[in-house]
């Protein structure tokens, strides 16, 4: 049975070139980049080159890139680091109800332990944050606005540029979680106007356990990991050299011919969306349908059934998919994103995310369109909610 992997928003395989780039740093060039001697200098040089690649991919300066252990750490560093550094200035942060848990749970900690007030902005039915809502929510004690660039469940691309303009006018720090956007749509920190931005390697065919935080020169934040002087005193800990090298290479490749690759995915995506809508009744496409949707994201709710059954049935046919976000699959609550866009619980429970990648083929998409209706039918036939 051929495997069909349709969960690229959860994680991606490491590209062959990326693996080859990493290998020497797992083996012969094992030095500690902080060391004086030559093996250490080789490692330091490799980290520096990777930093350059990441910086260039998002229009930043090398000195504005801080490597982290992933998107989660980048998000945590922003939320907690800004909160600690600027708490004298104010204890109010604005974010949205559909952020990744790395942002939302950090906000919860700030509420619980440091007395912060957080405004969680509502979104519309397609998952958009209204820049006007941001404007209205800003207070004199607001120190940070954090809105994701693209949603990891329903693929909505937020109007970050418009939001940034409003936020920066008020002299407040603007952060965006670009973990899902990276490698899918162009990112230019200057054009976006953000002060901080999070990326993760394993979503762009790089290794797991590495990511980066972009922080504009001059932005003040307390480090989350303190200790050694690595990452210019902003992120302590011996560098994951091989991981960083792989991430740099993955980022470079991801941004090569980005538009062309995105167009390919958009074509598959639209075929899949159309195929599902044509062949299955009572389905709801979540997220927008236009250019404001991530090129690789397909996300539906199927009425009357629960998402996990769909996943298990797909898995038995060799198709890997997700009901929403990978990190919440241990949880039993319905997706906070689907509730935020207005679905009742029983509909929110019936979600399926199919996220495409560069190696997916039209054939694979056809196969999914062929088998999915049967799975939905069978599952619905068991449902006490379905009167089909």
């Amino acid at each position: 049975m051929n495997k069909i992997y349709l969960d690229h928003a959860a994680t991606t395989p490491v590209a062959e070139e990326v693996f080859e780039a990493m290998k020497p740093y797992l083996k012969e060039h094992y030095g500690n980049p902080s060391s004086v001697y030559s093996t250490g200098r080789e490692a330091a040089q490799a980290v520096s080159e990777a930093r350059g690649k990441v910086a260039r991919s998002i229009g930043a300066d090398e000195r504005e890139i801080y490597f982290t252990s992933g998107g989660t750490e980048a998000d945590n560093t922003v939320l907690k680091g800004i909160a600690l550094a600027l708490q004298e200035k104010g204890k109010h942060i604005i974010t949205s109800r559909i952020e990744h848990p790395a942002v939302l749970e950090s906000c919860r900690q700030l509420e619980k332990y440091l007395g912060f007030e957080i405004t969680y902005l509502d979104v519309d039915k397609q998952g958009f944050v209204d820049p006007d809502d941001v404007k209205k929510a800003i207070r004199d004690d607001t120190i940070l606005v954090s809105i994701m660039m693209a949603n990891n469940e329903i693929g909505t691309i937020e109007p970050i540029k418009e939001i940034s303009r409003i936020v920066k006018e008020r002299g407040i720090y603007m952060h965006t979680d670009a973990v899902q956007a990276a490698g899918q749509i162009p990112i230019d920190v200057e054009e976006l106007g953000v002060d901080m931005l999070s990326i993760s390697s394993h979503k762009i065919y790089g290794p797991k356990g590495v990511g980066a935080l972009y922080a504009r020169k001059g932005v003040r934040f307390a480090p989350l990991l303190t200790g050694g002087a690595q990452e210019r005193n902003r992120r302590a800990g011996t560098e994951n050299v091989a991981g960083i090298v792989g991430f740099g290479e993955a980022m470079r490749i991801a941004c090569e011919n980005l538009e062309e690759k995105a167009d390919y995915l958009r074509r598959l995506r639209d075929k899949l969306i159309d195929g599902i809508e044509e062949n299955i009744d009572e389905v709801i496409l979540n997220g927008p349908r236009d250019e404001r949707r991530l090129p690789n994201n397909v996300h539906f709710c199927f009425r009357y059934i629960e998402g996990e059954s769909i996943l298990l049935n797909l898995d038995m046919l060799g198709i890997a998919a997700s009901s929403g976000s990978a990190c919440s699959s241990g949880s039993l609550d319905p997706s906070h994103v689907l509730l935020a866009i207005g679905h009742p619980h029983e509909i929110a429970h019936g979600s399926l995310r199919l996220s495409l990648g560069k190696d997916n083929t039209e054939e694979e998409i056809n196969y999914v369109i062929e088998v999915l209706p049967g799975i939905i039918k069978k599952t619905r036939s068991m449902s006490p909610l379905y009167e089909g």
Partner: protein
Amino acid sequence: MYSEKVMDHFTNPRNVGSIEDADAIGEVGNPVCGDIIKLYLKIKDDVIEDIKFKTFGCGAAIATSSMVTELVKGKTLDEALRISNQTVAEALDGLPPVKMHCSNLAADALHKAIKQYRNEEFVEEDHHHCEHKNFCHKEFNIELDEAN
């Protein structure tokens, strides 16, 4: 994550469906929770002659529903009442910890059906009300709540 038995019952669920002239019906769970189990029983001389289920829920919910129908078919009501959620989980070679409490309510549906049939009151256990949707999480690993 799931045992082979669970996957077997999930893939080939026994006794799916409804019974038009059921003698008893037991339904537990709710959509907020993400699990609803509805059992239809045909009872004759205190024996469960036929039983069918409809379930909205995850793999564990479907497998436990299927398993409970298999366990009680042909049993007396008293025997059926001795079957607990734990019995069902064990018959399936166990369930993943995270599913143990929230999606393991087929026996509850069974008890509810039987008690209604006997006109007794059925007291649903707290964790199946699921108004507090974090419940399972909590009971399960108290430290987690501390953690966040």
